[in-house]
Each structure stands twice: as structure tokens, then as C-alpha cells.
């Protein structure tokens, strides 16, 4: 039995390591899968303007059927990415920047901008935000920018859709 002692201890140590490694890897793996799925809707560094979520249209888990979602899979490898969000009067809207680990790097809503457009420059260390843009610093190259707009009812969608399509995501 004593001959098993060291192998069992080694197995226990490695099981703790595997546990931690799996938890650490999970957000990256799931975010990568989401970027692949969302990225398939359009090119990198461009907004894709999704239809309202229904039982037949659920690009991400736990979507809200009351919000319109516009997504941009960004990549800072070649330089900063600029996000310009067109405000929607009298509606809740926000833009949120998620990094490759799923953490929120920034959220700006109509409450924060006072109804004015949100202008964000996604930058990595050593990159500079151009004039007029608020710098959002990221540690990873890739991530997702997401605009949420609250609709009072489904009939509003065409009008809201026309406004949100003025929002842009573009490499500098």
C-alpha cells in the first residue's frame, strides 16, 4: 500500500491543478466560441446588427427579447478600434466592451453620456486614443463590443434599427 502513497499524492496535486486550469480556461473558451459565432455574421471590426432574439434566433445564451443587440468582434492586433454609438432618444441604450476573458472593460449608457453619442477608442498598452475619443484600455487583442437598445414594443424595431445602423466599429 505504501507504494501507492506518492502516486496518489501526485494525483491529488494534479487534480487540484486540473480543476483550477479548467475554471481559468472556461471563460476564454466560451468567449472564443461566442466570437466565432457572432463573428460569422460579419467582418471583424464592424457592427453586425442582429434581429430581435426569439426562440429561433438566440446567438448568445440568455438573450433578452426586449433588447436589440448589435455586436462587433474587434481585434486590436493592427491598431486601435474606434466605436461610435448613435444615441437613441428617450430609450435606454448602452455600449459595453468585453475582453477575451469575458470581463467588462467599459460600459457607457445614455445616462453616462447625457443622451450624446458614445465615442470609445479601444487601445492596448502603447496605443493612443485619437482626439475626441475616450480611451478604453484592454489587455487582450480580441473581444466583443455590444450595443443594447431597449424597445418598448416590437413595432418600434424598424425605426430603432434605422438609428442604430449609424453606429460604427472600425479599425483606426
Amino acid at each position: 500500500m505504501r507504494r501507492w502513497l506518492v502516486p496518489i499524492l501526485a494525483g491529488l496535486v494534479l487534480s487540484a491543478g486540473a480543476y483550477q486550469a479548467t475554471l481559468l480556461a472556461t471563460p476564454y473558451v466560451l468567449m472564443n466560441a461566442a466570437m466565432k459565432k457572432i463573428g460569422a455574421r460579419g467582418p471583424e471590426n464592424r457592427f453586425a446588427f442582429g434581429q430581435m432574439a426569439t426562440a429561433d434566433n438566440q446567438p448568445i445564451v440568455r438573450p433578452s427579447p426586449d433588447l436589440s443587440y448589435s455586436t462587433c468582434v474587434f481585434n486590436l492586433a493592427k491598431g486601435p478600434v474606434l466605436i461610435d454609438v448613435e444615441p437613441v432618444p428617450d430609450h435606454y441604450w448602452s455600449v459595453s466592451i468585453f475582453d477575451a476573458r469575458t470581463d467588462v472593460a467599459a460600459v457607457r449608457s445614455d445616462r453616462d453620456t447625457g443622451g450624446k453619442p458614445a465615442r470609445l477608442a479601444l487601445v492596448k498598452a502603447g496605443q493612443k486614443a485619437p482626439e475626441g475619443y475616450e480611451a478604453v484600455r484592454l489587455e487582450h487583442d480580441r473581444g466583443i463590443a455590444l450595443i443594447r437598445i431597449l424597445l418598448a414594443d416590437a413595432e418600434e424595431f424598424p425605426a430603432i434599427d434605422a438609428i442604430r445602423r449609424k453606429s460604427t466599429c472600425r479599425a483606426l
Partner: protein
Amino acid sequence: MKSWHRFAICITLGLIGGAAFAVHQVRGGLADGTISNGAWSTGKSFGTVEASVRTRAQVALSGLLALPAKEAMYFTAKKDSDGQPLDGRCTYLVSGGELAGRWWSVTLYEGEGWLVKNSANRWSIPAHAATKGEGGVWTFTVSPESQAGAWLPTGGVKAFDLTLRLYHPSAAVINNPAKASLPAIKRLGCT
């Protein structure tokens, strides 16, 4: 048995066991650092760098791209106010008063968080769609069958959960979600 055989067996079992336990915990739903309030539970560190390794993994699975609490809070109920699991073959009355935030809605999901097919093509009840009663009280009915007033269909699924989204919650709710005034979920009967 040779020594390296013993190491190989224990190391393999250790790696598989550790990874499997992590997957089991993540799939088991949010338990780490969650706050309970009646039938509802939430976390305060969703989407933030303060989230624990386990919370981040769990949110990535069942609520990817969730917002931090200052912007929105997500309360999820898997049980009714009496502690019975929510069953899509049963009818429930959800009732509440004013919620301390700018806007709210309750959405019905199955599994890890998927909208359920139903005849009415309705998946949520936003604040303005609930049936208003006296004294600021509002209600809606969750049921597999069509109901008078505001109705949130279950599609007849075996198990579901309700997610209450509260956008721009008040500072009191952010700081102490356990004491926030949240809706009650009362089971009325089952088919």
C-alpha cells in the same frame, strides 16, 4: 505492477477528476458568491475583474456578456416562493411592487438560458406589460396555457427559470440586493 504504472493511473485519474469536478461545478449553476433574496439569487461581481475564477466561468456559461451591477442586475429564480422547483406544466402568479431601478423585465428560460418555443411568441414580461393593480402592485401569470391578463407562456417544458433584469438599479439594491423588494412567485396549480 511497476512504479510508473501506479503514477500513470493516479495522474490520469487526478487530471480527469479535477477537470470533471470543475465542469460539474460550472454546469451546476451559480453558487459561489451568490446572494439569495426569497426565490431569487444574484451575484454582485458579474462581468467584473473582481469575479472569482469560479463565478467568471459560471457566468461565461449561463450569462455570457452580462453587465456589471451598476448598469444592470440579474436575479434568477429556479424555485417558487415556497421552494418548489419551477415546472413548466404548472401555473404561477408572479406579483410585486415598484422595483428600485429604471426598467425591469422578467424572461423565461430553459436549460442553460434558452428562450422556449411557445404559441404566443412571448418570452418576457417587461414592466409596462404586467397587469397593474391597486397600490402599485403588478401581476402576471406564468402558465403552459393561455391566461387572461399578462401571460408568460412556459411552452410546457419540464423545468424553467425566470430571470429578472433590473437596469440602472438604485444604490440601495446594488449595495444590499438581499434586502431588495423583489416579486413573489406563487404556484396556483399543475396540469
